[in-house]
């Protein structure tokens, strides 16, 4: 099953595209701008709550796996290239140019937090890809650039077809006797080149056919009608809380951060901006409550 958007009866799926974009932007702002691992953990919990609210926990699993893999990679690589920090855990050998390869507690924690951050970014895009209606999002984008939004819509539409075609081709060629995966790197590249070329040709053929179909349906005739979607109270609530979270993240990143990894780790609970996670946790809690009530109470749903 491909991780793609499927319509569901949840408040996240029902959001106005503008509110959905703001929600995604606020998540990304929180994840990318906050330094304190405690704050980041709160942002992660918020993201998990939204995944739960959108009922896409199964759909985002591939993204979670990818995120975990990347996080693990960062966790491994960072202490090997970053030797700052007061608490040396392992004294490594001294190499020319690189110097001494010591592994420090600070570099290890910094790697773990960076990996976690990366995982949350991947997960946020996973949530966007599986719970936010791409047509609605692209409608908003089309007001800025119609051509770009159309290209994006086609890419979203054609990605699953391309994946399925690649799978089918791989199966057919396996039965035919093509060894696409054996041998060394060079042999593999040589064996796979015609495969990727054929897949590319297939995509070009499909693009030409779609262009023909679009022309037959009047694409490029002139002025295009744009749909206006109603901005409902739920959209206002989500937008307001998303903007609030974004503002908090931006404010906390301006000025001097109250958390340091080097030369020694700060205490995440002792800081001047302990209100940041409190505001974020409050925002996410309200979103979850509003979303659950929307799901459970028809009256509330009709009101917002």
């Amino acid at each position, binding site marked *: *099953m*491909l991780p*793609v*958007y*499927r*319509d569901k009866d949840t408040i996240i799926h029902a959001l106005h595209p503008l509110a959905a974009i703001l929600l995604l932007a606020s998540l990304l702002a929180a994840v990318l701008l906050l330094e304190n691992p405690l704050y980041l953990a709160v942002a992660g919990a918020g993201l998990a709550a939204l995944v739960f609210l959108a009922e896409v926990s*199964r759909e985002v699993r591939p993204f979670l796996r990818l995120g975990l893999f990347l996080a693990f990679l960062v966790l491994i690589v960072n202490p090997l290239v970053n030797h700052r920090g007061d608490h040396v855990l392992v004294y490594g050998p001294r190499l020319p140019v690189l110097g001494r390869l010591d592994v420090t507690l600070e570099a290890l924690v910094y790697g773990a937090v960076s990996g976690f951050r990366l995982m949350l970014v991947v997960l946020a895009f996973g949530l966007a890809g599986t719970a936010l*209606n*791409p*047509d609605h999002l692209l409608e908003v984008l089309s007001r800025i650039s119609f051509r770009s939004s159309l290209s994006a*819509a*086609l890419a*979203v*539409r054609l990605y*699953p*077809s391309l994946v*399925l*075609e690649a799978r*089918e*081709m791989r*199966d*057919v*060629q*396996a*039965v*035919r*006797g*093509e*060894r696409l995966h054996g041998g060394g790197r060079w042999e593999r590249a040589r064996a796979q080149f*015609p*495969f990727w*070329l*054929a897949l590319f*040709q*297939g995509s070009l*053929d*499909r693009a030409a*056919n*779609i*262009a*023909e*179909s*679009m*022309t*037959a*349906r*009047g*694409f*490029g*005739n*002139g*002025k*295009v*009608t*744009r*749909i*206006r979607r109603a901005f409902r109270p739920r959209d206002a609530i989500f937008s307001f809380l998303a903007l609030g979270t974004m503002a908090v993240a931006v404010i906390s990143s301006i000025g001097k951060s109250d958390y340091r990894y080097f030369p020694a780790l700060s205490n995440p609970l002792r800081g001047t901006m302990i209100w940041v996670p409190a505001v974020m946790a409050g925002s996410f809690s309200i979103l979850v409550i509003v979303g659950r009530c929307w799901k459970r109470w028809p009256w509330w749903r009709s009101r917002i």
Partner: protein
Amino acid sequence: MALVEIENLTYWYPRGERPALRDVNLKVEKGEFVLLTGPTGCGKTTLMRLLNGLVPHFHGGCLRGKARVCDMDVVSSGPRPLSARVGMVFQDPEDQLVSTTVEKEVRFGLENAGLPSPVIAKRVEEMLAGMGLSRLRRSFLPELSGGEAQKVILASILALHPEILVLDEPTSQLDPLSAEELLTLVRRIHEETGTTVIMSEHRLERCFHYASRVIHLERGSVLFDGTPEEAARWWGGREGAFLPPVARVFARAGWKEIPLTVNQARLLLAALEPGPPESCGRPHAEEALSGEGASVEARDLWYVYPAGPEALRGIDLRVEDKGHLVIMGENGAGKSTLLRCLLGLLLPTRGKVSLLGWKPNRERLPELASRLAYCPQNPNTYFLSSTVRGELLRTLRLRGYRGADAEALIEGQLRSFGLEGVSERNPRDLSSGEKEKLVLASSLLPPTPELLVLDEPTRGMDYRSKEEVLEILRMHGEGGSTVLAVTHDVEFAANLAERVALMGDGRIILEGPTRNVLSDSLFFAPQVNRLLNDFCPGIIREGEAVSILKTLRERAEGRKERGAETCS
């Protein structure tokens, strides 16, 4: 004033060696249902592209003559103004869908036409309700079945309220049930709205009788233009007639009156003097091979998709060495999953599979390449080379042939499959029939495979191409190979296999000799069986039906002559 007026029109595609349309003269009046017939590459698609200006404006090329559609000159106006008046549905839904959801797709053309929002909203609702798509309105388009996707395309075209609806083989990529549904819908639209319909279609048994006019093209020229009844008479008993099977057998048997449907044919037989015979006797079921071994065998085979349904539920299947077995069943019955498990492309959840004496798995498949050939449903997934010759050479290299040997084998294969004329062309640019022939030619290169697996080999093919493929497979079968095919095409199965397995809901419902399985059925029986089953049970092939109808005709004529002599 005619809706379509074409005068002395000749058209060449860019770099086309011969004209795609040649001296075409045509008039189509409002409200007509025109069926275009002809072999692949005869110019049907080009003619339809001309109607909405895609030819010559999108494809380029050179056009001579006049074409007016909806009172607009096609050459000077182009596709933009024509798009609102001529709606076109192409063959493959995958190549037409632009948006990601059903509702957005239906809106696409309306938004392009710049209609006011309330009008768009009304038409979208009207189309979704009218076409039975309301429950799918927010569905993700790539996840729809082919039939549903083609219905969405049709809805998005009809939302524009076109004066002419042009359908280019709209069911060629669909299973029989979806095809039937779509064609019924088109008929309903024509009858209820009076929209002019111009359609090309290979499944003639489903639409020939309700067309008001049939136009037959060959090599870009109109060879015939008249009613379906006149078309049936025009074809007479000629080989390769583009008629429904029931009409074809009556024509080949030399009948003067040619019915277009099974019902008409039954009435004709019922009116015979002295009536149809009580019984012709049941033809013997072909002896099924009971060789020592089995090329393919599955025992208690189960497959459950991760977090999905049970696709296969305890399948027991045996394909004898040198046997021909066809697997049939509706979409979702589990046919493709079964084929993938048998080939080792999917690892069964439970049960045993033996493929040419091996336990199949993906990693070991290259070792079986010279003993096993697989022709996929979509031939494009087979092609990795830029020329037909290159494709054959690629297979030969995989089978260990090089140099002059390979060249000689390629020449021979090109000749025996009638592909010499296209040897330097890109395989992707060939017609459906030519593509299937190329896949077969490549698969059947030496050493001849012991097992040939075919997945929907006749999809999108015209009647003549089907006959050619059947002939190739028959010749191949005589060479002693085992054939395992999955198809929806009942006529094809009847002519190819000696055994048929019917699948439903992940299980084999019935497996036995073709004659037994394909008789006495409403939907899994060939047209000739449905026609003759009452008094000649077990007839499933056209040749058999033709000889029975010939006998009946001669008997009726003989009786008439004797009656005339008695009177005189």
